[in-house]
């Protein structure tokens, strides 16, 4: 058995393993979306798991493209490079969108269900109380002078 045949079998095994890992993590994302109790935990499941699973599935497509390119099929090079661009687009846009959704949910008044501490809420209330106390002291000072 020559080296090239061994490389072909190994690349097939890597493709199957990557597809299995990707499908497993995408299924975890769906189950987490159904089972978690809260907007923020659902976001945690639905964004990170799909990003990690799509890395592996598109990685398997890239390996298939490189294999076709190795077999002198020029369609494979375009397949691999464009799949890499799609992966880069997912990796750049998915966390930013999740961050925007979480920030918008917190600002629109949806609070975490079972959270022990909420530092963002504490910060905003601290600012409001500081403003109120400072304005009250300023008013009282003015009243005292008059």
């Amino acid at each position, binding site marked *: 058995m020559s080296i090239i045949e061994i490389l072909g079998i190994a690349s097939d095994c890597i493709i199957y393993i990557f597809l299995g890992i990707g499908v497993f993590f995408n299924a975890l994302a769906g189950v987490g*979306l159904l089972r978690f109790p809260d907007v923020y935990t659902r976001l945690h499941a639905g964004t990170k798991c799909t990003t990690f699973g799509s890395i592996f599935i598109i990685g398997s497509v890239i390996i298939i493209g490189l294999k076709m390119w190795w077999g002198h099929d020029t*369609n494979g090079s375009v397949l691999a490079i*464009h799949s890499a661009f*799609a992966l880069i687009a997912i990796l750049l*846009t998915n966390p930013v*969108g999740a961050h925007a*959704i979480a920030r918008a949910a917190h600002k629109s008044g949806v609070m975490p269900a079972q959270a022990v501490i909420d530092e963002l809420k504490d910060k905003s209330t601290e600012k409001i109380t500081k403003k109120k106390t400072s304005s009250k002291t300023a008013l009282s000072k003015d009243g005292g002078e008059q």
Partner: protein
Amino acid sequence: MIEIFNVYMIVLIAILLCVIMAIVRVIIGPTIPDRVVGVDTINTIVIVGMVIFGAAYEMVIYIDVAIVYALLSFISTLFIAKYLEGGEF
């Protein structure tokens, strides 16, 4: 190539089940951000499905469609988030 084609069809069916679970969350979601999270997850899974479809049929144009779909879904998610915050455009 025929074996890998069948494997890709199995992967597409499994991904379709994930999309169905996300659609259930979009329908029964109690608040509006829940539905937005479901739609965002559906977008990512559909991008992956387009890439797999392009690899199964060896059509590169499907993967180009997936790239454009990724960027447009990102922009739509940002606009929905901005609307939920109550900001002005």
